[in-house]
């Protein structure tokens, strides 16, 4: 199954059995790249059912993350990389997506702890912690037409892949694919959370911008692990 979304990002390395600090850095740089490339698309999706800033917000935030990495931040573990990113996102993205992605990366970092290498089960647990963080903050359920509609299938596919013996990279790849399918599936939904909910029935027939960006960011994680079947 290949990713068919309009967003793509170049593969950065070979297939990863476990994930390293370099992987985490590559993930964030890759996420920044895919978000920048799709800034207009995300603004447009948000324009339809929101306030036309999602692409701008994420681009501003991930650019800041990259700027900090460029400035010579030198974290020792994947968890530290993600924690730094979480703090930057929290203080630069704003809007709903800022605290949600900030919490997601913070919880992901917490889940990884001090590990220097991340195996497939840890990768799945990391995604689950991130998702749980988003739910804890945003209180959305699957079907509310939010980024949770991408995160939850991603977590489920990651768990299934890990249980089936996949590598960490493959786990991320499975998650990204499921997130993308979940984002596509938000299209017919009527929003019950976030800004799109103000539109009522008029929110249907549009893809949720946060679900789409979640799929992009998870795809960047898989690409960073060298594990994407295009």
């Amino acid at each position, binding site marked *: 199954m290949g990713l068919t979304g309009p967003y793509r990002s170049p593969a950065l390395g070979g297939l990863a059995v476990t994930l390293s600090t370099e992987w985490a850095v590559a993930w964030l740089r890759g996420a920044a790249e895919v978000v920048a490339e799709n800034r207009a698309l995300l603004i447009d999706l948000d*324009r339809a059912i929101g306030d*036309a*800033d999602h692409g701008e*917000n994420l681009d501003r935030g991930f650019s800041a993350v990259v700027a900090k990495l460029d400035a010579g931040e030198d974290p020792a573990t994947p968890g530290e990389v993600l924690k730094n990113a979480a703090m930057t996102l929290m203080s630069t993205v704003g809007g709903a997506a800022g605290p949600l992605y900030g919490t997601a990366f913070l919880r992901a970092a917490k889940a990884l702890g001090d590990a220097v290498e991340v195996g497939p089960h840890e990768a799945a647990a990391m995604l689950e912690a991130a998702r749980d963080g988003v739910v804890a903050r945003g209180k959305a359920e699957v079907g509310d037409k939010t980024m949770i509609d991408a995160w939850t299938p991603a977590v489920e596919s990651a768990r299934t892949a890990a249980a089936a013996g996949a590598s960490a990279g493959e786990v991320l790849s499975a998650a990204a694919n499921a997130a993308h399918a979940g984002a596509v599936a938000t299209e017919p939904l009527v929003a019950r959370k976030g*800004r799109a*909910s103000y*539109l009522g029935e008029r929110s249907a027939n549009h893809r949720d911008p946060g679900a789409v960006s979640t799929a992009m960011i998870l795809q960047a994680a898989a690409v960073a692990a060298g594990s994407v079947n295009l």
Partner: protein
Amino acid sequence: MKKLINSPRAVVAESVEGFGRAHADLVTVHPEPLFITRKDSPVSGKVGLVSGGGSGHEPLHAGYVGRGMLDAAVPGAMFTSPTPDQILPATIAVDGGAGVLHIVKNYTGDVLNFETAAELAEEEGVTVRSVLVNDDVAVEDSLYTAGRRGVGGTVFVERLAGAAAERGDDLDAVAAVAQRVVDNVRSMGVALAACTVPHAGVPSFDLAEDEIEIGIGIHGEPGRHRIAMEDADGITARLLEPITADLALTAGDRVLLMVNGMGGTPASELYIVFRKTVELLEAQGVKVERSLVGNYITALEMQGASISVLRLDDELVELWDSPVHTAALRWGA
């Protein structure tokens, strides 16, 4: 897109810098992270009031910083809630020892960012209470949704809670006034034409020459439904009806009325809407005791208007009339 700006990403910083220079007698601008405080803050012993939200709604919130209103305003990017690292130092800066009230418009982003900042402020020893403004009757409220938006009623909450803080009420009392205002104010808006967010470069929605959007918010988001253009009296009736219904206004009620321009509406048109609103309220036996007509909470250059109605009591009238001295609202000072 033609705008008097230098670059989309510089709009907020440059605009706030200009604001700070224009009102240097009233406010201090803290540039990094960005927030605006009352010149004389913290006011010792007074409850501090902090509000904020996305930029593009000027004069909200910075225009309401000053005596009898806000102690700090925290501007986010255009139409984007500010971040906790802005809200936290603003909160600490205006704590005069009596605690701080966060006035938060009910948007997921604003709620989450203020919530985080409040937690962090409490960790730093500042007592924080929050009040959520959710006055927009265009949005159907339900347990399962994000609820109603905060719009025009925010101006009233900031003013009246600010007046209560100024007279020396403690944090619980100020929060109670704010909540009383929230419970008694309802708003509804209309757009004749959309606005263009600088970073997006295209209008936030498209309307045909003979269409208007009823139930728009303040972020250029589309409204609840689209109808054929009507005359001002017809549109006014459409906006007012759900407000009076939701507030269950009855003969003898006294109200504070705001007819607010969304940024691109001539004052003359706002007064035409005001005229009809008063006529309709009076026909119901409702007395318009105080009023505001003008651009008080905007969506950039959007063409349209909103109506906000607050049920008054003697205490609220007294608080309203007490001195206020901010860039955008000033009397008795």
